[in-house]
């Protein structure tokens, strides 16, 4: 019994260390997101060309959301297969919805 308990503590300590390392990654992710946000705002202040700025802004937003979903919401962890299917299903439908509504007006 005593052996089993110490085994469980060791396992807990191991996982605690793993979580600590992961938390460091989360902070790096956060710093990158802050940098992307500042870059996005700075590009607007710099008054660059519209056709250049808009695609870059959308790419920066997409990367930020990827960070948020994969690291902050832990979708990079195991056991997120069905959530990923559902979430990307939503994203796909979202893409079609926005496409349909904007094309409708642009036409």
């Amino acid at each position, binding site marked *: 019994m005593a052996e089993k308990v110490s085994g469980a503590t060791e396992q807990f300590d191991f996982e*605690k260390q793993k*979580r600590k390392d992961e938390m460091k990654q989360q902070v790096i992710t956060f710093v990158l*997101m802050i940098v992307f946000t500042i870059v996005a*705002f700075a590009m*607007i202040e710099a008054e660059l060309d519209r056709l250049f700025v808009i695609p870059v802004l959308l790419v920066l*937003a997409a990367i930020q959301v990827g960070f948020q979903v994969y690291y902050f919401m832990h979708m990079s962890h195991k056991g997120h297969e069905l959530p990923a299917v559902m979430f990307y299903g939503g*994203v796909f439908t979202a893409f079609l919805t926005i496409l349909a*509504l904007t094309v409708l007006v642009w036409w």
Partner: protein
Amino acid sequence: MSEQDILNPKHMPHDPEKATLEGKNKFMGFWFFLGGETVLFASLFGTYLALNDSTNGGSSSEELFGLELVFIMTMLLLTSSLTSVYAMYHMKNHAFKKMQIWLGITVALGLGFLGCEIYEFYHYIHGEHFTMRSSAFGSAFYTLVGFHGGHVVFGLLWIIALMIRNARRGLNLYNAPKFYLASLYWHFIDVVWVFIFTVVYLMGVL
């Protein structure tokens, strides 16, 4: 074994939020819900993109929006997303007090965001006379951004309710999924805001 023993084991499992069947189901169901929310916000974004030039002779987005406040709001919400990651980190280490503290910081930052948004809307309505009824642009703007603000209000009430309800109960396998889902919801609010500040504000003043 009574329910109490199951919910308060001597050694908490690795993922307390997914240790029970109820927790697993909630986790799965909540991601399904987030997929639906994505579509809901997409229809509001699509409407906004379609109507943001229909100003009915009133103020346009270039004239209205100021980026300083939006930048502060973005930083507040982004930071609150990190603090709720910290809260979940402490939940997994079974440090209930620390989790409560980080959730408290998250709520404070969320309230700061909400205050900025209320100030912004107040300024538009009373200073600029830009309301929901001014133009199709106004309707689309207030519906999209207001709906996001409504999510912030709901998320704050949710987290506060969980903190108060479980303050003396501590962490167990019954409420761990509840905390985890509230934090997922909070991250999703930040995901939507990333697109709002990009599509509505930054592309609006471009």
